């Protein structure tokens, strides 16, 4: 296998960089239940990495470990070449990792625009003193950040519902707004937890297009959990397959698709 340490160029001309995040021997327990058993994998700069597996495999738990919501009992998370100390989720976010949630965690009392603007919070630096005065530094920062938010709203084609309270939106639109909020943070790594759940074919095509566009235009590294095999095969550069907390496959979509363990896991073969 050729040395890919510093990155490579894909068949369609996209630049994949070196490893940006690495999970080393992660074990996560909830009381007596081991949700993640000694899993290691890496994510490269600029790639789209899918995490797949049957329900209950531990995929969302993995995402929660990456975003800091769960702290693994064993193992290390390496980010940008150095070991990441245990940190709170908001500190992880401030480091440039944004995420969406499986069951949608939008700010239901706010409008779409306000929700996207909350995504800009890590980028806004003016202190309370300047903010209380408002005129000057704070106002300029708000305007600049508002511009970025509007660009993202345009990018995801949700201009028409900018001012709508998100509680009134359909499920598909809520997912898109959550994506917008995550993008607003201009993250280095974007974590998507089942971004296509509950969508019809047309909505899935739209969402896939957006994800590809984000990766193409901004070079954002994306890790996503997804159940639709067609989507996974089409979108991702590499795939991690989990089952009952263990890693049973790791490689390109075609490599994984032909892996007997993966086929068994999905078709349900009796384990000895």
């Amino acid at each position, binding site marked *: 296998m050729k040395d890919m340490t510093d990155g490579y160029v894909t068949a369609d001309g996209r630049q994949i960089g070196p490893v940006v995040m690495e999970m080393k021997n992660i074990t996560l327990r909830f009381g007596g239940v081991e949700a993640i058993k000694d899993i290691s994998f890496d994510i490269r700069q600029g790639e789209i990495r899918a995490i797949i597996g049957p329900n209950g495999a531990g995929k969302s738990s993995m995402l929660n470990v990456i975003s800091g919501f769960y702290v693994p009992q064993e193992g290390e998370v390496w980010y940008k070449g150095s070991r990441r100390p245990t940190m709170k989720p908001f500190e992880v976010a401030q480091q440039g990792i944004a995420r969406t949630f499986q069951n949608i965690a939008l700010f239901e009392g706010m409008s779409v625009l306000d929700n996207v603007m*909350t995504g800009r919070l890590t980028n806004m630096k*003016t202190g309370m003193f300047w903010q209380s005065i408002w005129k000057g530094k704070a106002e300029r920062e708000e305007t600049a950040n508002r511009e970025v938010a509007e660009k993202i709203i345009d990018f995801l084609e949700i201009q028409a519902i900018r001012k709508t309270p998100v509680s009134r939106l359909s499920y598909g639109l809520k997912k898109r707004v959550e994506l917008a909020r995550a993008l607003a943070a201009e993250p280095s790594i974007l974590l998507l937890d089942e971004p296509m759940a509950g969508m019809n074919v047309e909505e899935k095509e739209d969402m896939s297009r957006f994800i590809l566009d984000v990766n193409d235009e901004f070079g954002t590294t994306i890790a996503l959990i997804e159940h639709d095999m067609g989507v996974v095969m089409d979108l991702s550069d590499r795939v991690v397959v989990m089952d009952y907390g263990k890693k049973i496959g790791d490689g390109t979509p075609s490599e994984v698709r032909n892996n007997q363990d993966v086929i068994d896991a999905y078709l349900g073969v009796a384990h000895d």
Partner: protein
Amino acid sequence: MPEQLAFTIEVFLNGLMAGVLYALVALGFVLIYKASGIFNYAQGVMALFAALTLAGIIDGQVPFSHLINAILGTDIHHFGWHVPAFLAILLTMVVMIALAYAVQRLVFRHLVGQEPIILFMATIGLAYFLEGVGDLMWGSDIKSMDVGLPQGLNTWIDDTTFNAFGYGFFIDNLDIVASIIAALLVIGLVMFAQYTKQGRAMRAVADDHQAALSVGVSLNFIWILVWSLAGFVALVAGIMWGTKSGVQFSLSLIALKALPVLMLGGFTSIPGAIVGGLIIGVGEKLFEFLIGAPFLGGATENWFAYMLALIFLVFRPQGLFGEKIIERV
């Protein structure tokens, strides 16, 4: 103008102004409850503590003087200086922010994720603790509060209305000033919440803790901010009530009056606290004047607000502006 009508209008106006003060106290509750789900039983005591500290600083009182004298056998009570009101208010605000930080760090940081009832019990403990500290620090004798607010009958209104309507409206200067200050405070808080970066973070934390964490908001920082704002509101309420009736330990009971306001306006709504306060204020005074005194023997002001709140609980438990509890099956 017939005298009965003039009386009624006067009572109505006084009710509005009393209502503004109730709204102010309720606002402190709403701020904390929205951001952290904690019902702060100690809000009234915070107002008392703020008023005690302010009065103490202005008079140049030595904090914990009784304790120091008892232990060291000295006899000191005052520093002998007189701090100007404005500086004293700033210093008291510093104390309230320090209190917010201490409360968050020592108490509520360890109770994150606990049941609401446990958080509520913690605030009950906090109330008693703060009351005791207030007594120990500044003594329990009634203090007068004078920050330079105008007091007494507003003669201009009295004369003008007498000339216009044949009846002079008795409206206290202090009430007018209190209403204006409270209104400005409310407007300021609403604008802070709506437009500033910290305000947005506050609204995010009030909405969804997990989502707020995922966009990089430090929950601890926002909770300290919210408790500080509630402390500021408590200070203003303490100043108003303290100037009106002196700084005494019954001041903490005004918190009880805020409960009907919250039940009317909803626990999570800032405009609700305002409207609820006004309704209770006006309702209380008008009811006493029109029905209580003539037919029920008077003294209805004590219970009218609670009766109104009870009725609301039966028909509209979330209050006028609160969030309706919809359970998605």
